């Protein structure tokens, strides 16, 4: 079985963010970098699938500058077999259609049986790349999975829908899934695996060889939301107030989810 897992290196969300001078993305200074959280679930699930079917080859793919290799090494230490680094110093400036195009170009002739991606990235958060790749490759895709089982050439997955509802989906391989929080707890790499990871294949491919599509979206401006006054005063009958409060808590916050 051939498996591909696509990951992205993102800034730690606790970092101090500043808008970059170009005004269309964040400044790279003073950021700590890590693997996109949803991609960690993807890597973990890919490694579990590999462990389940035994005879499998798992490739981890990441687009970015040389700096992303650090994050790829973590995926290799978690159990991926080889790394495909798409070298691109301006990957941050590429829109989801281009990113999906690059991945598709890489994957086209490699006949992967399963492709894992995160549900979305923590920085851009478009949530498009996974499903676009599936579409471009002509594969079925299942998004936002929170449960994954493989048997007899088919994936049975649970998808998370709004309001905590779940949907069971079954799909024959080859297929692509995008992974959501709750799917699994990513493993902590063991030291022998960290050492082995240093010796695993990690090839860099220049992005020019794979970028065959044009951008269709353009980021105009990036900015911090204006700080608005914090308070909100509700007035009226107690019963009605309670209903309005509940609906605000439900819609504007996460405390009731």
């Amino acid at each position, binding site marked *: 079985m051939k498996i591909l897992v696509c990951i992205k290196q993102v800034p*730690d969300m*606790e970092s101090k963010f500043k808008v970059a001078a170009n005004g269309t993305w964040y400044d790279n200074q*003073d950021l*700590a970098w*890590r693997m996109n959280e949803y991609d960690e679930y993807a890597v973990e699930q890919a490694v579990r699938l590999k462990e389940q079917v035994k005879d499998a080859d798992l490739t981890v793919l990441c687009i970015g500058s040389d700096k992303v290799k650090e994050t790829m090494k973590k995926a290799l230490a978690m159990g991926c077999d080889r790394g495909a680094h798409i070298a691109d110093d301006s990957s941050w400036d590429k829109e989801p259609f281009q990113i999906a195009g690059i991945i598709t170009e890489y994957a086209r002739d490699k006949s992967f049986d399963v492709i894992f991606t995160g549900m979305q990235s923590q920085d851009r958060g478009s949530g498009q790349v996974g499903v676009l790749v599936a579409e471009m490759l002509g594969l079925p895709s299942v998004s936002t999975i929170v449960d994954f089982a493989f048997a007899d050439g088919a994936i049975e997955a649970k998808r998370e829908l709004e309001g905590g509802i779940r949907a069971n989906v079954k799909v024959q391989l080859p297929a692509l899934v995008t992974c959501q929080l709750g799917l699994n707890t990513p493993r*902590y*790499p*063991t*030291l022998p695996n960290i*050492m082995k990871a240093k010796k695993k294949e990690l090839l860099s491919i220049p992005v020019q060889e794979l970028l065959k599509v044009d951008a269709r979206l353009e980021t105009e401006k990036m900015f911090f939301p204006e700080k608005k006054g914090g308070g909100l005063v509700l007035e009226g009958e107690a019963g009605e107030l309670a209903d309005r409060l509940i609906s605000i808590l439900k819609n504007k916050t996460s405390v009731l989810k």
Partner: protein
Amino acid sequence: MEFTREIYWNVGHGAGTLVPMYLLVIAAIAVVVKTFLQRREVYRQGLPLNRTDQLGSRISEMLSNVLLQKKVTRVKVPGMFHGLFFWGFFLLLIGTTLIVLQADFTDLLFGYKFLKGNFYKLFSITLDLAGIVAIVMLGALFVRRYFMRPEGLETKKDDAIMHGLMTVILLTGFVIEGARMAVTELGGPVATWSPVGHLVAQSIAWMGEDTLRLVHKLTWWFHLLLVMGFIVLIPFTKFRHILTTSANYIFADRGPRGKLTSLDLENEDAETFGATSIQEMTWKDIFDADACTLCKRCQDRCPAWSTGKPLSPMKVVNQIGEVAFNTPEANLIDTISRDVLWSCTTCRACQEICPASIEHVNKIVELRRSMVLMEGEFPGDEVMTAMEATEVNGNPLGIGYASRGDWAEALGIKTLAEDPQVDILYFVGCYASFDKRNIAIAKSFVKLCQAAGIKVGILGKEEKCCGEPMRKMGNEYLYQSLAMENVELINGYGVKKIVTTCPHCYNTLEKDYRDFELAAEVETYTVFLEKLLHSGKLKVRSEGLSCTYHDSCYLGRHNDIYDAPRALIKAAGGTITEMEKSRSEGFCCSAGGGRILAEEKIGERINVKRVNMAVETGANVLVSNCPFCLTMFEDGVKGAEVEDKLKPKDIAELLAERL
């Protein structure tokens, strides 16, 4: 009248006595040697470890602990029982050796006798009193073990054998003496130099000479057989501690105290890290079990054990021994159990009090290393999250690394990147850098330095966690990467002196970082400030304050810093009402050993227990010297619901308030 006595009186000094007697002695010693050689093969299952360097100081350590019973008598009552028993029995051993020396060597070969005259008087009365002291102490120990039954004291067959045999050996000794004296010394002046024997002689004199001679002869041989039995039993019962505990003083860790061994992570041939099997522990870890006397002093002081957690340091040490001797293929982690291993706070109370110089803590860390490095296992997901946060941001709290120096913004101090010419580098640590409550420690310390005219620099966003909690949790890999980065940075700035406000940072930089060649001198803020105060550079107002003081484990037991912090509190006008458990007996706050990263899921909360001890003193301020302790106490006063009665404070805060 010559003050002496006839050696081998009544039993005879011919071949009929000497041949069987010496054959028995040789046989008994042969059994001991052979059995210990067999045990040595069991010790050798472990990895090599050099514990015979600095042999001179090792031997003097052994002598002072064996002959002076230094560690044993640190716990007063049972310690003195053992000490007095030992001294009594040891004098009897010397006495018997002198008899053998004279009768079978100096007298036999050269006709020279020294057991006579004044020396004989001294010899006789000393042995007589030694015998009675030994019997009384044995009785006291017997009453303690079998009637008072201290909680947690395990009593096994070995204890019954040992008590019984020792008692009978001592009593028959007096019977032999009494019978001999009844026939040869009653009414003479010599008898008064053996007061106990004299009493026995008087009470059995009615038997008449023939019976007394028979009783004497039979008891003499019986006594000899018992003593041979005692020697033979040494390797087979807890009597072995006579040899193994003494040897353990020689093999003891000679420091630096609390420094862990750095694993060689670059070793390409290493297949495993840490230990899961007895073959991955060192020989000393197995030997420690043989040196343990089950006195349970460690267990009595273990903060985990006393709050209902399954960890008993004594049991861990002995389980390792049982595996080595009985099931060498067994998995140590399964045998001891994960909950036990994760419960340790590395507070060192066990090691500090152990009268046998056993090393408990490094065994636990070694087993944790295997769980973390080989299995990626932690006591909980929150610990794994903290590890990952440290990998990304250099602190377990997961806060963006770039804001590490934000607390200092208004204080007018610079980072070494901005100005490396400083008097001291203040290594702030994660909690004083990021934690809202603990930032007060960092600010207070800087204000105190500024008041004393000390130019302080910090590393700011370049500083990373010292790695201590990760290392104690077993994550040697993460620790070493943090340590190497910090050392390279600090050495790069050419720092001469580092001061810390966190005892965990202090112990790690001062001891563990030397493996990575940290060059600077390292001092804890309590010692540093005390010197400033003493030299008059720092002046604080003395304002009355009733408080109690908590010795953190890493300033206290790990570094013996007890007086400097107390001097600072006194200078600030504080009157300390000590808690019952203070100084080297201090009770951990629960945050050591990386437990600061973990939730406490089993048993009572350790920090609440400690806070309640502080409440009992009636003081209204609980002064501490460690950000981990302060965090635990702020939490503990809420848990104990004493927020209005007791306020936790760091020494630095106390002093800065009085500038």
